[in-house]
């Protein structure tokens, strides 16, 4: 691995943080660094925090709408790893390199300035975002925080070692690889446990697609093995009849679905998983805890009510309830505020466009236009067949939320839909990063 400038900064910062415990001088220099201005602001400026599906789209579409506005994208990970399609890495159909990209084209093709650093504080009054590498001023701030896991909802999932033993892999990256490797290393006859968190969570059909692809792998490579889905919900939350049909046709005796069986406890020494319905001894366990907004949403003070775990934002513009000129998009948004849209990559992409337009227009003294969003999401059920869900969303002026204008699922699974899934990914990756 070559050490990029960004990594050098990261390592230096980490070293400084470690040294800070021992002496105050390094602590002071770290603080000095944070107050130093990154790229002093001249004209109109939009800062986008979070370079995932929502953030990359918002940055690109803001520049497309008005190239004269300066757009800065702040993100901590130099690599863009796609969560959609990552189930195919776990299932063995794709490699990490197939879903790993850079954001270089956003800089090259649109003039977006990308800063690889971590945000630590927000001053929404003087409009400053503090990062570990300095303070960035903004006129408008769009935050796409993604999700984080509520590990504390499961007993025993309380240490890095326990988390490594039971990877959630719902943020594509090292955990995706770890889970794949565990499956490959597992002895035939082993039991795989997967937990589905209570709604709302990122990518409603995601766990069921993954379970299907793991069952597909076990069927071919691990005779005698099976996967048990422990679902916190009372039924399959998305594309239910289509998944169940595929499971009945292909994975009888290999895939077992148990509703109303939320995981309450894990034991890393024995691999025993405890659910509301009993205990299962696992060889491999993909424990997906209850989800909440990404940590930055909490750290930057975006939560509106003490009990909130997702961010309330206006459904017309995605401006946060808490701060003027600070907008929140993607999986981290609160469905009670924005309306009944799924936490999908496609919806984050749509939200990014709506929000970018609202931000650019208000910055230029114009009224934002009415939101229009869509969603299409494919799930593979084996090596070459897929199912999907599609919907169009519009703004309802009476309830001031986003509502469905049309929607439906594929009538059956088809090989053609699998080709559409592949090309859908190429299309939406292009729309965010190209």
């Amino acid at each position: 691995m070559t050490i990029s400038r960004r990594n050098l900064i990261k390592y230096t910062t980490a070293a400084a943080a470690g040294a800070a415990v021992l002496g105050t001088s390094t602590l002071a220099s770290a603080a000095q660094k944070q107050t130093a201005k990154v790229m002093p602001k001249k004209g109109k400026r939009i800062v986008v925090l979070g370079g995932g599906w929502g953030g990359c789209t918002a940055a690109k579409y803001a520049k497309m709408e008005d190239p004269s506005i300066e757009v800065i994208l702040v993100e901590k990970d130099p690599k863009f790893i796609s969560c959609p399609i990552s189930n195919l890495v776990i299932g063995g159909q794709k490699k990490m390199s197939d879903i790993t990209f850079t954001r270089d084209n956003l800089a090259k093709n649109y003039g977006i300035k990308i800063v690889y650093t971590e945000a630590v504080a927000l001053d929404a009054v003087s409009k400053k975002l503090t990062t570990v590498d300095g303070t960035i001023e903004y006129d408008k701030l769009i935050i796409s925080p993604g999700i984080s896991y509520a590990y504390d909802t499961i007993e025993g999932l309380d240490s890095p070692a326990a988390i490594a033993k039971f990877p959630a892999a719902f943020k594509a990256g090292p955990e995706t690889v770890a889970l794949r490797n565990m499956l490959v290393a597992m002895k035939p006859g082993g039991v795989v446990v997967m937990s589905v968190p209570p709604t709302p969570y990122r990518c409603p059909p995601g766990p069921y697609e993954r379970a299907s692809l793991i069952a597909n792998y076990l069927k071919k490579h691990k005779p005698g093995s099976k996967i048990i889905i422990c679902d916190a919900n009372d039924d399959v939350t998305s594309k239910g009849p289509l998944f169940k049909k595929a499971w009945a046709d292909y994975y009888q005796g290999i895939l077992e679905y148990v509703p109303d069986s939320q995981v309450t406890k894990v034991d890393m020494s024995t691999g025993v998983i405890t659910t509301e319905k009993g205990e299962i001894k696992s060889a491999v366990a993909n424990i997906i805890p209850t989800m909440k907004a990404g940590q930055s949403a909490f750290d930057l003070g975006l939560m509106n009510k003490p009990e909130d775990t997702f961010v309330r934002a206006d459904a017309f513009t995605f401006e946060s309830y808490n701060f003027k000129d600070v907008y929140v998009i993607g999986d981290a948004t609160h469905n009670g505020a924005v309306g009944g849209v799924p936490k999908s990559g496609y919806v984050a992409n749509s939200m990014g466009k709506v929000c970018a337009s609202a931000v650019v227009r208000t910055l230029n003294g114009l009224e934002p236009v009415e939101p229009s969003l869509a969603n299409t999401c494919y799930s593979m059920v084996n090596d070459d067949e897929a199912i999907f869900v599609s919907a169009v969303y519009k703004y309802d002026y009476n309830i001031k939320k986003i509502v469905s204008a049309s929607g439906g699922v594929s009538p059956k699974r088809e090989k053609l839909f699998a080709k559409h899934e592949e090309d859908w990914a190429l299309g939406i990756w292009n729309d965010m990063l190209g």
Partner: protein
Amino acid sequence: MRKLKLLFYCALTAAVLTPAVVFAAQTVTEGERLGKSCAGCHATNGYAPGEYIARIGGQNTDYMTKAMKDYAAGSRKGSVEMSIVAKGYSEDQLAAISAYYGSKKWMNSTNKTDKKLVAKGKKIAAENGCFDCHGAKGEGMDAFPRIGGQNKGYMEEAMKRYKEGLIESEEMAVVKDMSEEQLTALSEFFSSLR
């Protein structure tokens, strides 16, 4: 007086020289407002990079408007995705979205094509009068779609639907007697046509 005149000219020059983007930013067409979300599948500006999703940027507006209305009405069967999506918009909105993508510059498919199949497809196209409606470069006109430089998998699937009668069209009845191999060759040819 002279000063006033100068001011007038300055104002005039400013009005003329004001960048188009500023003006464009003020008016968002209905087609743009609604059509941006289509790019989630069809890519930015409708230049879908894959094989099985259609390129829509620069497609003929009249054809797209008709296709979208037929999807919504359920008379253009086969693409389940588009049948669901098109129902989410009014007829006027579908026309606006079509005009939005129709106004973009066409960009040819980047699909790889097979030389032998392209040659075979060219012969089939000439023998069956494809160029009569779709033009020498497959550029189409009005209600006849542009097929030159379209993505090949999408075209092949669309032609299969014409063949099976899922999409009704007198003109496209020409594909009813063709084999699937012939349709593959035609798709390869038209996808490669510039």
